[in-house]
């Protein structure tokens, strides 16, 4: 039972001052084992804050990040799953499923986490799952001003992942979940 927090596109301090208070009250240290961050934090203070929640922090570089040494993409293995991380501004068209699927095949991962669109989405295709946790601070994006703060918490347990989606809608935290099971033997690659 491994808890993995996926969030990003905070754009602190340029587009948003901080995470919403209700989110901050829920995010307490000690519960989460890994954090995956899609990027665009943008400053070091946010990095330090995330580090206090969980020491195992993975970040991919977003175009506005002030820290230049984050990698463009990152892959890691948690339990039975391979996770891939990328900010998403490199993948054109932004947020397009087919292009993201290409990236997923390139990275050879089961779950790809990208951001940049500031909208929560969760797609499934033959290769695996693509998750976009949205913007945790509700910062406006290049595309739209209408952004609900959201982030994602994944509970990885063996071959099963439960994805809990936390959204702040009209000042209230709404939580949904998505169940996803990895098919063991079947690898749909054309090798």
């Amino acid at each position, binding site marked *: 039972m491994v808890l993995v927090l996926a969030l990003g596109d905070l754009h602190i301090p340029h587009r948003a001052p901080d995470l919403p208070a209700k989110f901050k009250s829920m995010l307490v240290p000690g519960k989460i084992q890994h954090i995956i961050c899609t990027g665009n934090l943008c400053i070091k203070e946010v990095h330090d804050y995330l580090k206090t929640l969980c020491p195992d922090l993975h970040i991919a570089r977003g175009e506005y990040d002030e820290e230049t040494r984050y990698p463009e993409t990152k892959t890691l293995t948690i339990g039975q799953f391979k996770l891939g991380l990328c900010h998403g501004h490199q993948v054109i068209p932004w947020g397009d499923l087919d292009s993201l699927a290409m990236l997923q095949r390139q990275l050879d991962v089961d779950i790809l986490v990208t951001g940049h669109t500031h909208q929560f989405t969760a*797609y499934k295709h033959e290769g695996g799952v693509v998750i976009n946790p949205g913007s945790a601070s509700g910062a406006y994006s290049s595309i739209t001003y209408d952004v609900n703060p959201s982030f994602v918490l994944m509970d990885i347990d063996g071959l099963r992942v*439960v994805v809990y989606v*936390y959204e702040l809608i009209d000042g209230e935290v709404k*939580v949904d979940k998505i169940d996803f099971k990895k098919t063991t033997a079947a690898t749909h690659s054309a090798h």
Partner: protein
Amino acid sequence: MVKKRVPEWLNSSLWSSTPSPSVDDDRVQRYTSKPTTTTTSTSEPPSVVEPPLPVPPPSASVREEPPPEPQSTDSLSDHDDKGTATPSPEDFSRQSQLLAELSKKVVNVRELRKIAWQGISDSAGIRSTVWKLLLAYLPPDRALWPSELAKKRSQYKHFKDELLMNPSVGSHRKLEDNGTSCDSDESKCQSKGLLSRSQIAHGEHPLSLGKSSIWNQFFQDTEIIEQIDRDVKRTHPDMHFFSGDSQFAKSNQDALKNILVVFAKLNPGIRYVQGMNELLAPLYYVFKNDPNEEYAAAAEADTFFCFVELLSGFRDHFCQQLDNSVVGIRSTITRLSQLLKEHDEELWRHLEITTKVNPQFYAFRWITLLLTQEFNFADSLHIWDTLLSDPEGPQETLLRVCCAMLILVRRRLLAGDFTSNLKLLQNYPPTNISHLLYVANKLRIQSSG
């Protein structure tokens, strides 16, 4: 003011705590103790009543003439030697009495208590059954045993399944029960598309801060589970049964941990307190070493219920809020102090007033851990035989045994100052346990007389 005279028998050399390992010495002492007390008692005021020994040595040999069929001496407790290689005829007779009692259709628990009081020998492996009867886990009627055991064991299994489950498994199970398994959906829609979102039950997400959320409870319990884990790993590090890298030791540790976690969850008022692991260890050890394989396999469940029963008398010692109350640990220690004053005022005065050794410094551990930390494992099992079988109840008996412990080293205590007395009492010297229990028993007769 007349200083109360110490009874002569207390000052006799018998009460000095020289350890006598061989059984023969012990028997000799017991035989000789009778004549000395008779001689001194005549010169004493009638307050010293000739104590009727529980099994007077002469009659023991009368009761059972032929020794019973030779028991295999490869005792189960191979790691702790009681120091007696060959059981004495008295041990045999007690053993056979116990076996006789146990094989009756309806066990007479009072009789059992009387026999078990003197100690249960290890070789026949009956301690496990006797303790279960003494702790009222098994009903006296033998015919009911299988059904009772089955019931209790399944109850424990149910507890475990419910309480030891981790939340993500729990939510999965609920999902499957509801029949909305996404698995069938997944296999059907191979093509791409948005993943369907589903509602969750109120507040059942990992970051939930709600009191009723299983996730929140899980994280809160993690702290206690960690503490239990640490203590279990430290239990009896010198015994292969409990510690070491073997698979056997690990499984025993897991069993102890499970029992303590289930107990902590079922008793939110008292949860887990350091020390409970020490009370649990002897019970589990005895039950796991039951020669009956079926019983040994179910040792965890049996130990749980017997642990609850044992702790029921001593719960209040573990509750911090009750420390200063009438039922708390402080009051029990005061009772011990009073008992000592009653029986040996000189020693009491010397300890508490002259050398200012506050009984809390030594008696706290004696009382809360039921003397498991003061003697080696085999000896503490022997003491527990007496504690559990005494009709007065374990608390009263415990106080008498503690008092006896003090009296046995009175020579050294009277000669010592604060430091040496404290050192002595916190590292109690090895003693002959039967001797100790004999003295403890004498104290009972005295106070009632």
